[in-house]
């Protein structure tokens, strides 16, 4: 089976990134089962479209497919669980972070703790959640995030800036309610 390079390389390229793929899917769907569905579907697509993989970064390639799979499944099941709650207040975003909340640093420190962070990130719209996950958890470069999110590199920077601002506001709100 010396000629059997294609199956080997698909496995070699796609399977090592299963955890990364699942993590992104889990953050996007905010649900264990939906995340599994997305990853499974994404791998099937990746497998079918393996010929479109032009070498290079298998992780970015696979994450792009995971992300696209999520958005297309969400579109399909729009009425179902994948529905993204739209937070008017969060989108509105006129209030400068921490401006009216006393000491922002102290607030931030109090928010340390997995659950609060998770909930605050889960409350962000998917487009901001995904750049945070890719940057802060997976530590992807802007270039790779741009590939995955299919936006220019400049947009990655501005989206991250916005995401962090929204996240800080979300954490302040969470802590304010404690």
């Amino acid at each position, binding site marked *: *089976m010396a*000629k*059997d390079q*294609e*199956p*080997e390389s*698909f*496995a070699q390229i796609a*399977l090592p990134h*299963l*955890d990364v*793929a*699942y*993590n992104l899917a*889990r*953050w996007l769907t905010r649900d*264990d089962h939906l*995340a*599994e569905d997305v*990853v*499974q579907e994404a*791998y*099937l697509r990746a*497998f*079918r*479209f*393996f*010929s*479109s993989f032009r070498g290079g970064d298998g992780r970015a390639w696979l994450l792009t497919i995971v992300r696209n799979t999520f958005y297309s499944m969400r579109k399909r099941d729009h009425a179902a669980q994948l529905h993204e709650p739209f937070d008017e207040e969060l989108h509105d975003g006129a209030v400068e*972070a*921490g401006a009216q909340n006393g000491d*922002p*640093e102290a607030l*931030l*420190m109090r*928010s*340390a*703790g*997995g659950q*609060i*962070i*998770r909930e605050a*990130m889960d409350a962000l719209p998917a487009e901001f959640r995904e750049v*945070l*996950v890719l*940057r*802060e*958890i997976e530590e992807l*470069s*802007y270039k790779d995030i741009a590939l995955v999110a299919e936006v220019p590199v400049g947009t990655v*920077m*501005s989206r*991250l*800036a916005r995401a*962090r601002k929204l*996240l*800080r506001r979300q*954490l302040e709100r969470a802590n304010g309610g404690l």
Partner: protein
Amino acid sequence: MDCTEARELLHGYLDNELDAGHAMQVARHLESCEPCAAAHALDLQLRSVVRNNAPRYPAPAHLRAKILATIGGSRHETRRRGWLATEWLRLGASFAFAALLTWGITYHFVPSQEETLVGEVVAAHVRGVLTGRLTDVASSDRHAVKPWLSARLDFSPPVSDFSAAGFPLIGGRLDYLDGRPIAVLTYQFRNHVISVFVWPDRSGGEVETSKESRKGYNVTRWARAGLRYHVVSDLSAEQSDRFVSLFQAAADAPGR
């Protein structure tokens, strides 16, 4: 650099994504501007809070197996083969099959039925060559190959030997394509293998001969007298044409 510029670049600075020149300008600005430095400090802190606390969800252990099963089971055509001794080999063939199948659809999300079929015949050809399983009935005698196939199919493919022209008949086998059992005739040219896929054409119409190339394989297809033909090989286009002409002439001849 003023505050507006610095704030724009602050996240690029935080993420180490600025070129050296801009990074230095931002650093200088932060040294001299307290509000910007404070904003940067907050961003740094937020980052460490997120990095230290946001969970990284690991894939559940069963997911890998599930994915392998999904991929392995997604192509039934590869499943029925006894010659694929283990699950891994079966999976490997599936991978190759799907990779082959998708050449033509890189830029088209949904392939046409014809494109899919061409991908499938190429995949079946490559599977045969890779595994060495080219024939169920190995014979250069068309009077052995034809009845063997006819006995197992609901049609009778035209079988001829072209040894005299350099394309000896090697034999025939069954495969499963387009949702039905089909005949595959195998010919040889020097050390190249030629596969001819034959099955009844549902529409029953005649289809002109057309040629295309898929990743180095020539595919020539046509339909005539109620049968569809796909000829796959890695011959040169000239040799492939020569074979197709011989084959078509013989198939059209009375008594086949």
